């Protein structure tokens, strides 16, 4: 029995490639476009950060100008309480005790609150 042989002249070419059209631009252009967008974003961010720094400087100086004023008010109140405390002690105990072995002004941990506030 004769063996099966290829046809005379060989087989025809086999189509193994898909024949799809390449859409859009070349990839390098997408990369460049992305780079342009990112650069623009960084540029805006740069100026935004610079301005934020200046705004922070403005805010901190507005507070620095107020600190002595607020501190003076608070200190006066502390001193008023301090002398009132001493007077109260003098009245109740008749002595003038020093609690701390130091001349520094020490903010009291507990403060006296009047038991009956009537106005």
């Amino acid at each position, binding site marked *: 029995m004769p063996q099966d042989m290829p046809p005379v002249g060989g087989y025809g070419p086999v189509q193994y490639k898909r024949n799809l059209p390449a859409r859009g631009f070349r990839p390098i252009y997408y990369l460049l476009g992305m780079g342009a967008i990112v650069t623009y974003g960084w540029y805006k961010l740069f*100026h*935004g950060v610079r*301005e*934020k720094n*200046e*705004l922070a*400087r*403005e*805010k901190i*100086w*507005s*507070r*620095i*100008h*107020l*600190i*002595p*004023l607020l*501190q*003076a*008010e608070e*200190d*006066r109140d*502390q*001193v*008023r309480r*301090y*002398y*009132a405390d001493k*007077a109260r002690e003098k009245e109740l105990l008749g002595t003038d005790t020093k609690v701390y072995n*130091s*001349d*520094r*002004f020490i903010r009291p941990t507990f403060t006296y609150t009047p038991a009956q506030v009537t106005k």
Partner: protein
Amino acid sequence: MPDHIPKVDEIGATSAPLMSASYFIGDRCRAFNDDYMKCKAEANGRGELECLKEGRKVTRCAASVIKDINTHCLDQFNAHWNCLENNNHRLFECRAPEMKLNNCVFDKLGLKKTIPGAPEGDTPVHLRPKQLNSIEHSGKNQW
């Protein structure tokens, strides 16, 4: 207050008016403020008791600024601090009223807002018409 300490009227202003007036207080009262802070720093922990005199000067000076602004620029002042009050105390949302207040205070009282340490050659941030960080006026001119 005990009798041996002279009385002084407290400033009695809330945060927004104080913030609005802060640069003018800083301009007029710089010497008193520095004096007081120096006294406190050098008083060896007794500043509360020993710097009361300097403290009274600070308060009187600041009160004089507030009083002068109230007499001469009350409308602009009210507009600006109300704007601050409504904008979470963000100065950059209130540039338009601030500009009016600054001009009025400079004309009438001669006090000028300058931000120490700002880079030379740049427009100071409070004079830029476009506030990049402003949400309400996002990127638009405020005046």
